[in-house]
């Protein structure tokens, strides 16, 4: 072994950084698949998505990162659930 693979530690520290940053994003799913990192979730605004992507690029530099972060759908509901 020539180098320590620290990817899983970097992902763990990334979670701390996302929570501690001004955006306070704790609700994202971050998964490691082989050498690829996938990030899923919903954020409230375009600014926060951009901030998350900035932090990801910095914290996971050198890794293949796939982001699938969508903006929250804040339209009113079209139906209601009946609880009888």
């Amino acid at each position: 072994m020539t180098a320590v693979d620290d990817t899983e530690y970097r992902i763990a520290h990334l979670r701390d950084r996302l929570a501690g940053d001004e955006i306070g994003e704790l609700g994202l799913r971050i998964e490691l698949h082989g050498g690829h990192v996938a990030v899923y979730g919903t954020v409230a605004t375009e600014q926060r998505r951009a901030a998350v992507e900035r932090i990801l690029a910095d914290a996971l530099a050198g890794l293949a990162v796939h982001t699938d972060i969508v903006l929250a759908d804040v339209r009113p509901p079209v139906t209601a659930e009946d609880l009888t």
Partner: protein
Amino acid sequence: MIRVAAVGDIHLGPDSRGLLRPSFAHLEDRADVLLLAGDLTRHGTPEEAAVVAEEFEGLGVPVIAVLGNHDYDAGRPEEVTGILGERGIRVLERSATTVRVDATLVGVAGTKGFGGGFAGGSGGEFGEPEMKAFIRHTRTCADGLRGALDELASQRCDVRIALLHFAPVPATVAGEPPEIYPFLGSYLLAEAIDEAGADLAVHGHAHLGTERGLTACGVRVRNVAQPVIGRAYTVYRLHRPQA
């Protein structure tokens, strides 16, 4: 029939000012009460709380909230509660409030709740002081919720709703990584709901969870975290059995 609108985990801040308000226009045509299930802000600062207050004041229906863990992050939950209260948003913590809808008295008992895990995979008050304090906080929240629901029963409420941020059952956190379940909720909350009785329990916190679940005694549980319901809010129509 009582129409309950609910949403949690909206995480508002200055960058989202005015984002939700348009979707709550004419809410009174769709709902009798709005419940906010915690994590109303990102870090619980007074500036963020002011945005929440602006978004939800004067909606035409009573607005009842609990705070979430994000709302405690800045260490100023009392200020957040005060800012919301000044704008007519009732913030519950181990307490209850009532709303009259025509001839029906609706009671809402609320607590933030806390973690610890669910039956078969839960922590206990054992070992280090830190661990004891963790579980003791959950127990305090659960005991407060039980007391608040009992108080609503003594007021002869026709409908009783438990409002939480943390989850009372594992069914509605399904979809989250199993490793973090102990940080998402506690069976102690469900036990309190079942012992005191309720018609519905609403919570948030688990963004990757599932909307629908049930307690061991058959109380419906709904995870209304905004990413779960995928809309500005959701509406439950509670039909009372005919007397």
